[in-house]
């Protein structure tokens, strides 16, 4: 997280030094604007992001779905309702609002800025595919996202990624159009010496790589939070095998979850896009996967169950 802010400040700092340069004086215009844009987008998604995500996924409130369900279906929905209650009790949190997403692929996500404004959505496919214990594991995972304030963390991260992308975009545009100002920079750099040139080159590289680096950092945060949610989910149910089985079932259903778009991927229990990058281990996956590889998550959970069994 700190690396993120530092990166953003470095970009903004370079922007000020090399483009605003002399005319900008000591006021860091670029940084201030970047920070401002970042804050506005962060605040908007902080207060209204949950509704936007739910709307985009076409999520319906559980009560509405249950009202028009068949008897056998009512049982499953009632089960989900009870499980959410159970997990809210186990986590000591208020009960989140529950939504059903009409999509046959098993997946689930949580959203909302804090536990009092949290919503939890599961897909139709998840309700149909999992048994009670597995469903409990998934709900516990999502409840942990809520308890760990992951939605808040990822909102801030997303805003920072957006800020970085915006800034590097401006910088590149400035480079194309800024012939006049560059000559002025050259005049000035005659006095600046080698250090100035080195810094300029470094900054240039940073601008080119900015969106990639920002994305990689965001994904790093996202993967850490996934592992954390798995672990604290297992702490809530005291049954890591339930979640491990659920993850196996979710993994075997490879179809992408169409109802959930790229922007909310990091909130889901499994990558809704079904991107192959999330399934592999290795350098590129380490950089750009929003979720740790399923096999690693399942192995971690099974290890927990093993430790648990030995202690008894």
């Amino acid at each position, binding site marked *: 997280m700190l690396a993120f802010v530092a990166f953003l400040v470095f970009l903004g700092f370079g922007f000020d030094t090399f483009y605003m340069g002399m005319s900008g004086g000591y006021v860091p215009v670029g940084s201030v604007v970047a920070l401002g844009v970042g804050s506005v987008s962060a605040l908007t998604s902080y207060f209204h992001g949950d509704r936007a995500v739910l709307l985009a996924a076409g999520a319906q409130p559980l009560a509405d779905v249950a009202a028009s369900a068949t008897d056998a279906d009512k*049982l499953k929905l009632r089960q989900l309702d009870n*499980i959410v209650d*159970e997990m809210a*009790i*186990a*986590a000591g949190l208020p009960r989140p609002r529950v939504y059903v997403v009409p999509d046959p692929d098993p997946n689930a996500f949580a959203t909302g800025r804090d536990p009092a404004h949290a919503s939890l959505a599961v897909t139709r496919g998840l309700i149909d595919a999992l048994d009670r214990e597995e469903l409990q594991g998934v709900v516990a995972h999502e409840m942990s996202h809520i308890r760990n304030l992951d939605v808040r963390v990822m909102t801030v991260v997303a805003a920072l990624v957006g800020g970085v992308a915006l800034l590097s975009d401006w910088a590149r545009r400035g480079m194309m159009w800024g012939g006049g100002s560059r000559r002025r920079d050259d005049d000035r750099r005659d006095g600046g010496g080698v250090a100035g040139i080195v810094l300029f080159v470094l900054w240039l590289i940073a601008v080119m790589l900015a969106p990639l680096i920002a994305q990689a950092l965001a994904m790093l945060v996202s993967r850490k939070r996934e592992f954390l949610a798995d672990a604290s989910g297992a702490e809530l149910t005291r049954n890591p095998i339930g979640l491990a089985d659920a993850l196996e079932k979710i993994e075997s259903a490879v179809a992408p979850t169409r109802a959930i778009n790229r922007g909310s991927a990091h909130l889901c229990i499994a990558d809704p896009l079904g991107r192959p990058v999330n399934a592999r281990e290795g350098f590129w996956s380490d950089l750009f996967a929003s979720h740790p590889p399923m096999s690693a998550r399942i192995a971690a959970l099974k290890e927990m169950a093993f430790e648990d069994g030995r202690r008894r």
Partner: protein
Amino acid sequence: MFAIGVLIVLAALVLWAIASYNHLVGMRNQVLNGWRQIDVQLKRRHDLIPNLVNAVRGSMDFERDTLTSVMEARAKALTASGPADAAQKEGQLSQALGRLLAVAENYPTLKSNDSVKMLQEELSGTENKVGFARQFYNDIATRFNTAQQVFPATLVASSLGFKPAELFEITEQADRDVPVVDLSRK
């Protein structure tokens, strides 16, 4: 100079004592709330049981004693007084219910009956809620106790009137045993 130093140290100590007092009060209220959550869930369970027993009564004529033992255990649990007594009687009720649910598996008509399935779901949900409410209570009570007992908070905790919270435990040996279910009867 020395006097000022002493004053600063004293002020820091007082501030620290206030902070740890407030922290402990917050935790104590959480623990109390956790305890009440258990009561809420137990009450729910007591309200549900008559419905379940009535729903299965017709199909389970052979299991009279299973049904009556559930109703008796419920009646006893309702009159329980004090946490230890309640823990024991609720434990017996849990066992009786577990037996009933297991035996009900033997009746195909019951297994396919949607309203009975719904009641079973309600009941296992309630059982889980009772269990998770206890788990949460034990978790926060443990955190509360640890907060009191670690150094240096332990220096002020007892003089400020904090007592360790009691953990919810199964006291009866019978409750620790895995319930034996006789499935040979049809």
